[in-house]
Structures are given as C-alpha cells and as structure tokens.
C-alpha cells in the first residue's frame, strides 16, 4: 500500500472509478484512499473513502469486507448525523441483507435482527420498502425458502419504486433467479427477452441473467442453442470473483452438455476463487459443480488425458492427495470423497441454520 505523499483520498477514489469492479488494482487504490482518509482526521473523508471501498467490495466479490465496512459506516453515520445523512447507507443496506444468510456462521437471530433494523431505517426515512423486499426475496432464496421468496417478491412489486429501489433492469434480472428456483422456465425465458435483446442493461445486467436463462433452456431441453450464450455470459463474468456462483452454474451446465474438457478448464481456472471466497453458499455451489464434473469423469472409461491430469493435480493442491497416485481411478475416487465431505459439511451447516434440508437435498441434483 505505498502512499503518494501528494495524493489525497478523493484523487484515489476518482482514479479507481476508471477501473472495473473485481480488479485488484481498484481495491488497492481504495485501500490506500482509506489510509489517507484516516490520516486526514476528517470523519467525512473517512466515511467517503470507506463508502467507495464498500461499493468496491460489494461489486467486486469481497463480501466479508463489505459487511465490515457497512458496519463501520453505519455506526459512524449514527454517531455523527451532523455530518453524515443516514440515508446515504440505505442503498447499500440492500446488498447487506442479501449477503448475510450466505454465511452459515451467522445465526438466524442475527439475520432477523439486522433485517428488522433495515426495515426500521427505511421506514424512518419514509423510503419505499420495494428495494428491501427485493433483497429479502434473494435472502430467502439463499436460505432455500422458495415460497417465502415469492411472498417477498410479490410484496415488493406492489410497492412504489423510489431512489432506493433497484432499477428495472436489475429487478427483471432478480426475478429470473426466483423463476429459476420455481422451475418456471418458460416464463423465465420470456421475462429475460428484453435483457437478452440489450434493451435492459445495468452494471450487473445481463451478467446474472445468462446462467438462469441457460438453466431454463436446459430445463426445457433447448440446449442445442446454448453454446453462444454460455460463451457470452462467461466473458462478462470471467474477471470478477463476485460471479463465482454464476461460473459454478455454467460449469454444471457444461457437465450436463458433456463438455467435460471445457468444464475442467473453467474449474481449474477459477479454483483461486473457491479458495478465496468466504461465502458458504458460493463455496458449496462451486464444490458441487466440480463434484458433478468428477462424477461425469467417473462415469466414463478412464483414459490418459492431459486435461484430466491437470484437473486432478489442481484439486489435489486443495484437497490433498490420497494413496495410489499412479492410479487415476483411485485419485478420482479420493477426490470424489473429499468433495462430497466438503460439500455436505457446508450444506449441513447451512441447513442447520436455515432449519430445512434444502442444500442437503440439492446435493444430488445436477444444478443448485
């Protein structure tokens, strides 16, 4: 974190705005902005620098840091309403609600308390709860509570849209994940049309839409046209670890399409994301995807192939190597055991907190 003596936090923030979310360079610039802001002694500057870093963490795949920075900003805003308007945090609060239940370690009571606190803050500001309910829909989905998610979504859509609600493109994109969970694939494809046609766009639209659309096409057995969409979707998300779940879905679908070499390439390429992510739901999703790939390899006659050796070697860096290193079948069996153990441990931890068996039951399905 080298500091330029003559730079100021706002210069660094401005410089970071030129870089895309997910880039380490952007995060580094903003880390330096925070250090400089702290040196300035100005609470407003410290808040601004952390808000910029908060957005970077939110859209760049650093959820742990996002939650911590949000806590810092909210506490500081509460203590200094004379210089910080508490409404400045309302927009970010929606992302906090989505991320919290993705950690198995966070208790239901903590999730409920923070959700209630957010609703209270929105109401105190006289803001529409449309955005909050949209986030609660996504939170419910990540807890495997699909009917509850539908209730939140329907509630959200009846409320007026204001500055704190998502834009139309994001709302349509969000609705796709709900429709996918409900297996309403035809409706999903028709809802996604304006996104795919480029009529609705936003910072993360169509990024999140492609995996849902591809999932629906598979559900409707229309997979013959999926390759160009899969490639286009991947190009959008390949550089930002925030989209690890989307990459996992693409891998699952490649396995279903029997494109094992491409799936193995993606699994290996994004293993650093698996190691870096702190979100249990995303770790589980990615582990599930690579487990499905290993199962697909298991189902085929074992032949020497370089791509498979590279995959095994990369996975053994994470899961360790079992006995029988010269025997591909034994290696595969070991890796299958390891991924099952790792995946089910996360699934059980999430299910225990969520008081259901959603993730355990989905482990044996082709896609999460």
């Amino acid at each position, binding site marked *: *974190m*080298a*500091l330029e003596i003559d730079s100021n936090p706002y210069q660094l923030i401005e410089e970071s*705005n*030129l*870089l*895309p979310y997910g*880039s*380490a*360079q*952007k*995060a*580094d610039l903003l*880390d*330096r902005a*925070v*250090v400089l802001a*702290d040196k300035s002694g100005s609470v407003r500057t410290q808040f601004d620098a952390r808000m910029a870093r908060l957005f970077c963490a939110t859209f760049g795949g*650093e959820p*742990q*840091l996002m*939650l*911590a*920075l949000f*806590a*810092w900003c*909210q*506490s*500081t805003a*509460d203590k200094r309403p004379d210089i910080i308007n508490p409404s400045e945090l309302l927009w970010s609060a929606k992302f906090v609600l989505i991320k*919290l239940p993705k*950690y198995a*370690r*966070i*208790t239901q009571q*903590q999730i409920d*308390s*923070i959700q209630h*606190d957010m609703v209270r803050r929105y109401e105190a500001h006289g803001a529409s709860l449309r955005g909050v309910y949209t986030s609660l829909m996504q939170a419910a989905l990540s807890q495997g509570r699909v009917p509850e998610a539908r209730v939140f979504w329907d509630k959200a859509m009846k409320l007026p849209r204001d500055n704190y609600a998502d834009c139309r493109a994001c709302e349509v994109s969000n609705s796709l994940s709900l429709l996918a969970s409900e297996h309403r694939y035809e409706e999903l494809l028709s809802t996604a049309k304006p996104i*795919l*046609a*480029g*009529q609705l766009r936003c910072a993360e639209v169509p990024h999140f839409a492609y995996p849902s659309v591809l999932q629906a096409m598979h559900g409707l057995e229309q997979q013959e046209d999926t390759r160009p969409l899969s490639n286009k979707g991947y*190009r959008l998300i*390949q*550089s930002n670890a925030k989209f690890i779940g989307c990459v996992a879905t693409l891998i699952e679908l490649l396995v279903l399409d029997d494109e094992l070499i491409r799936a193995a*390439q993606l699994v*290996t*390429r994004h293993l*650093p994301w698996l190691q*870096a992510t*702190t979100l249990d739901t995303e770790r589980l999703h990615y582990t599930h995807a690579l487990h499905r790939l290993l199962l697909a390899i298991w189902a085929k006659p074992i032949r020497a192939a*370089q791509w498979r050796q*590279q995959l095994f070697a990369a996975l053994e860096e994470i899961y360790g190597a079992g006995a029988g290193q010269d025997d591909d079948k034994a290696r595969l069996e070991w890796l299958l055991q390891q991924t099952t153990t790792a995946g089910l441990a996360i699934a059980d931890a999430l299910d225990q907190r969520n008081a259901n068996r959603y993730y355990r039951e989905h482990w044996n399905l082709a896609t999460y």
Partner: protein
Amino acid sequence: MDHRFQINLTGLIDLLSNHLYTRPDVFVRELMQNATDAIHARCQLAPQHQGSIHIHLDDDAQAVTFVDNGIGLTEAEMHRFLAVIGESSKRGEWVGQTQDYIGQFGIGLLACFIVADQIELVSRSAADADAPTLRWSGRPDGTYDIGEAPPRTEPGTSVRLVCKPAFQHLFSLDTLRESAQHYGGILPWPIDLVHLGQNNRVNTSERIDAFPWDASHLPHTQQRQYWIELGERMLGAEIFDAIPLESTVGGVDGIAFVLARASLQSGRNRHHVYLKRMLLSDSVDNLLPSWAFFVRCIVNCTDLHPTAARNAFSEDDKLRLTQAELGHCLRRYLINLAEQEPQRLQQLLSYHHVALKALALEDDEFFKLFAQWFPLETNYGNTTLQEYLKRNQQILYTQKVDEFRQIAQIAAAQHIDVINGGYIYDAELLARHGELFPLVPVRSVQPSDISHELQGLSPDQEARYQPFLKVAATVLEPFDCRPKLKIFEPADLPTLFISNREATINRQVDHCTEVADDLWQGVLVQLQSEAKSELCFNFGHTLIRRLAQHPDLALVERVIQVLYVQSLLMGHYPLGRSELAMMSDGLSGLLEWSVMGTKGTATWH
C-alpha cells in the same frame, strides 16, 4: 369489456424531450431523416431522381421550414403516419422495404413539439400525377386537421415550425447550420439553408457522393495521414492511427481511430455513427466488441437496427455478427502491426495495453501472438513477458498489488523474480499462459510462501531465543499476528510484516469491529477467520540480535510494540485504535526507560 389506453400527448412530449432525446435540436435530425426517407422512397419510383433538402429560416428567425422533393404523402398516409404514434411510414406499405428507411418508430414528428406549438406540413404525393397538395396541421393537444392547400408544382413535403419563445436560440442561422451539418453533413444530396435571401450550402464537400473518410482518390501511402487528420478534426482528439472498418453484415463502412492516449476500460467509447448517411448519434456505445475500447469510430451503416433512444443498436444477431466482423478488422490490424511495424506496436501498447490484454483474454490466438509484448511489473522493474521468460523457467506472480509490495521488499535479495499480477487483467493473463503453455509452470504466490523460504535459525538458536519469541507472541497475539525469527536480506531491514489475503481482511474487519455497534460486533466476530499475519524479525539485523538476547523483558516488550507498528507504517497499512494505543504505550515506555537509563540503569548500548 375491452378498454383502450389513453395517451397524454403533452406528457409523451415531455417524456421525449426530457428522457429520450439527449439534444434539444433533435427536431432537425427527425425532419431531415423524414426528408431523407421520402427522397429514398421517391428514388425507388424514379431511380434518376436528384434529391434535395432546403431549410428556410424566416427573416425574423421565428420560424423554420424544411422542404424536400421526396415522395410526399397522400391524405390516407397523413391520417395513418402522422397521426398514429408507433405507425411510422416505414412500417407500412410505403414504397420499398422497411429496412430502406431510417425512421422506425413513428415518433419522430413529436420531437418538433418540443420546440414548436404547431406543426404545419404541406405535401404532394409523387405516387399519383393528379395528387392534390394537402396541408396537415398538428397540435400538441393531439388534434390535427387536413385540408387542401395552394398547389405545389413539385411533389414533396414541407414542414413549418414556429418556435416557442424558450427555444429561440435553436432558430438562429448559425445554430441551424451547425445542427444540419451535425446530423446531415454526409447526405448524398445538397442541403441548403436559406435566410434573408442568402443560400448557405450545408454539405460543402466536393465529393458529395463519397464518405468523408473515402481516401480512394489518394495514393495508399497518404491514406493513413488523411484519415488521422480527419479523425482529429471530427473527434477533437489526438489520433495515433486509423484502421479502415468494413462489415458486410450490418453494411458498415468507416474508420476506427486509435487514440493517442490511454484508453479507459470502465466505459465504452462513444462512436460517431451514421445510419444511411444520417447521423444516428455521436455516442453509440455498442457497435464494437467490448474489448475494443481503445478506438473511436466514425462509420456509416445501412443495415442495423437502432433503439428508440438512437444511441445504441438493438442487441440482435445482426449486431453480434457485425461486432465480430469489426472485431476481426481490428485484430487483423494489430497482427499486421506486430508483424510489420513492431516499434509502432510498442508505442500503441504504451497507450492501450489494457485493452489489448482484455482482447487476449477472449482470444487465445491473439494471446499467443501478443502476450510476449505485454508490459509487466516485477520486483526487478518493468519488463515484458518475453524478457521475464528469458531469465526465468517458471512464472511467479501475486494476485494483489499489496501482496506484491510485501514480497518485493525482500524478493530481489532472495533472488526471486515475481510479477505483480494485481494490475488489471495481469493475474488472469498469467494464469491463462499456464493453460496455453503447460510446459512453463505458472504459480501464484502469497507473501507467506516467500517467508517460508527465508532462512530460519538452528534448533539450538531457536531454543535459546524462546523467551524473546514468547514475549513477542504475547505482544502480537491481540493483533492476530505471529512472531518469527529469520535471517534475511536486506540485512538493514529489521522486521518484515507479512499478511496474506485472509489475514489482511481480518485486520480490516477487526478495525471495523472496533467502531461497529453491538448488533454488528456480534456479526463481525463470526466472520473472522483463523488466518494470522506474521512479523518476521531479522536476526541478521544488529538491533534484533541485541533485542533477542536482552535480559530486560519489559524493555523488549516495548521495543517489539514499536517495531510492530513501525512495520505497519512502513507497509502503509491503516492502524486500528488498539495499534495506535500500543504505539503510544510503546513510545512512552521507551522514553521513560531512556530517562531512567541516564540515571545509571543499564543502557541500550
């Protein structure tokens, strides 16, 4: 029972002016576009027809009339096309095919209501030799009337607008000329602006049929310079190079200009796009593939579909194929440059390496050709991958800039050559290199990987200095930091703070926890991982050697406190409250000890 939607025309006009159109002079575009479509339609009937557009500005500059010698309208067409929103003439059974025309949405005429309270249109159809001349008057309340007008000798249409007071500035000669040039400057028929009896030609090019970028009349060697000058004039930016663009899909013809400044990856470049020679927009953002943000284009296209806002094209298959073809033109240019003008390529890379790295991530063939020239930062200075691989058998890189900085402090002394992969796309490109060239191992390193390779003490020494390590562990424990005694170069570096990604995030979460309210403190504690940072004490440094053997453990504790905070400051890490407090304690203690030392107590030296 079925009901019909009611449309509030005034509200719709407000919507158009405030939300859809980006420039208030858009009525000029819409009227010239209608005139152009009408001329195209007439040319379908009579291929030899010579089109023309006249724009008459009243002497008092209160009204303007656009006159064309296009196909004109019959009464039935007036009812249908001028009065039904969404029923553009270009959708119906006008002469020719829908795609022959520019307007597609039937809302263009409404743009006139932004600047005028009434539209008066006089037209005579060329479709029928006996067609009467008709006058159509439309008002923003949605009413209109049609009646016969004094006969026009020539078929065609004129549209007269009387300006609203607030838009008087748009009705001056200079503004109208600028608007007409902006939108219709490359139309292939004469456009004349008439005011106070003076005729002003808008499109003054001697080669009216040719595009401004058509350099076919020049020798090949002079074309590049011609284009560069054109680009600098039209785009107002310094141009490094020009690339001819052509795509049969979409009917694209034009030039891509390589800017002589670093391109911004965050936003797409805005392109100057003509649709059938009428300016569609000077800020079209989706004509090229997303990686091509190092060029700005001036192009004409004949077969792409604009969105209603007209600053982008519909993302249909045709656009996708066009993007691919245009991408191919740019890629071919870069490959030619690499093969024939490597020096020039180096210069281009100095501006646009980020864009080219983005392309390399999408295109393996391009990667294989260009990866060697990409600039990289290593602990031995800036280099290229080609140079790096001359001195290394494998590629070592960090994922983050911060990790690189930690490693760079000692890597050179350990003869380790590490690439900073924290800059945009670099880590991904290096990982991709490993996929494409498996014989060159690629390894991502973290600071702790390097610290593990630092020379440790012998077991005897480790045992001897256990008391020191114990004190250090106690001091550093609240900060999730572990002490290590190592010997490393540079010898004048007393300590090295090493923090992997997880540990760094832990530190940041810790600092936030200190400030968070009770509800959030509970949550943040749950988020902490087991990862710890390390403080490596350099036993090769005199201070550390003396410190490790010093009998006064209280003093040792103070010095460790200060060394820890000093190492954080050296690495420019943010300090938490507890770290600031510790620095204060440590310094106070040392000062106190120093004062005592002057009274005869054992001193440092």
